[in-house]
């Protein structure tokens, strides 16, 4: 193994931090991200690795064989789960660990791996509608409730898109509160227009569209897999988000529900 110079150590550190940032941003578990960073350090002969990782923050310090140490930290912006990108990043991580390319090649390789064309918005909206129709069926929803879901999901998607565009971003709490209020109001109004439609089925299905299900699972995994601090923070975030969502639904019920709750 070729010994890294001071400059090369900095470049490898930069690559690892960016890899971790991109992986966490794309929805990787904390354990997998830590594993990728440790493996890269090992492959490049870096020692005294000190990694502190949360879902929203990464801090990494390493030392090369000649004793030069370097440290970098970064915050991780919240973004949507993007499995295709995560798959490419995982392949890159494995390739880098197996072949240890020259440090100067690492960042261009990472940029290339991050280049993934996401599904168009309409396709995601369509898939989400289909998934929620299935969930509505699982909650015993029938033909009377299904048209409401086909109406609520696209409208909430459009509203969410409008208020989270770059330059307009109002924040996650306001976004969820508004989406929940709109979903709840549409459910109540639909049930007034269509006699026999079950408002509770529509409310719980709408809540499922907004409640952060995967973060619940990840927080539990973190707690049980040795990342207790991150797990606790994530669980708190989930509770805050759910309070916001349920708050939006309760307000909509108070305005349009006529004592439904």
């Amino acid at each position: 193994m070729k010994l890294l110079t001071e400059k090369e150590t900095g470049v490898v550190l930069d690559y690892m931090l960016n890899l971790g940032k991109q992986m966490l941003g794309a929805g990787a578990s904390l354990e997998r991200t830590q594993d990728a960073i440790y493996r890269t350090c090992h492959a490049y002969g870096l020692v005294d690795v000190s990694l502190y990782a949360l879902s929203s923050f990464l801090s990494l310090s390493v030392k090369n064989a000649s004793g030069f140490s370097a440290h970098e930290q970064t915050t991780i912006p919240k973004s949507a789960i993007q499995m295709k990108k995560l798959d490419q990043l995982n392949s890159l991580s494995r390739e880098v660990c197996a072949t240890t390319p020259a440090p100067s090649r690492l960042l261009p390789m990472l940029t290339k791996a991050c280049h993934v064309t996401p599904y168009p918005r309409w396709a995601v909206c369509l898939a989400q509608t289909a998934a929620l129709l299935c969930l509505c069926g699982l909650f015993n929803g029938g033909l009377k409730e299904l048209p409401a879901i086909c109406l609520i999901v696209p409208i909430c998607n459009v509203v969410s898109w409008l208020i989270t565009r770059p330059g307009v971003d109002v924040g996650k709490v306001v976004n969820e509160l508004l989406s929940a209020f709109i979903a709840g109001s549409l459910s109540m109004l639909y049930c007034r227009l269509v006699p026999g439609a079950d408002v509770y089925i529509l409310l719980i299905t709408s809540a499922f569209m907004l409640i952060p299900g995967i973060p619940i699972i990840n927080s539990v995994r973190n707690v049980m897999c040795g990342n207790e601090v991150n797990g606790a923070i994530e669980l708190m975030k989930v509770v805050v988000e759910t309070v916001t969502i349920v708050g939006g639904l309760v307000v909509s019920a108070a305005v349009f529900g006529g004592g439904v709750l």
Partner: protein
Amino acid sequence: MLRNIVIVLLSFGASAGFGLVFGIETKRLPLAGLCGAISRIVLITCQSFIPNRVAYLFLSALAAGLLADFLAKRTKTLSTMYLYPAVVPLIPGDLLYYMITGFLIRNQELAITNALEFVGALAGLGLGFSAVNIVRHYEIVHKRKGNAKAN
């Protein structure tokens, strides 16, 4: 029986749909849906034999984790790719919703009942994922020993 078949098919649809929302490649979507369907089958089977929520969610999470690991190895990708769709039927979102609703509308009984159920569900899921990690750990140790012997 017919209702259970419908539930499994709906779980397949929900997991495949959420799979696309999570950005899973289209060629992997049927497998993602299959993970959700199998998780649901395990959940239904365990529910009919074991009345305790912690126990049946533990077994379902264990099955989902092992299935995701198995498929990830077969298709040479991350286990997360299949784990997220597989856990869709296990997410205790309804309990969290009813718990918070109970608190917000000051219905203590609704809140406390669902809070206890929610904590139980989290414990069951957490134990299931821990068990998957333990299995994975021993698998790696076993593989390393095998490689060392071969060398």
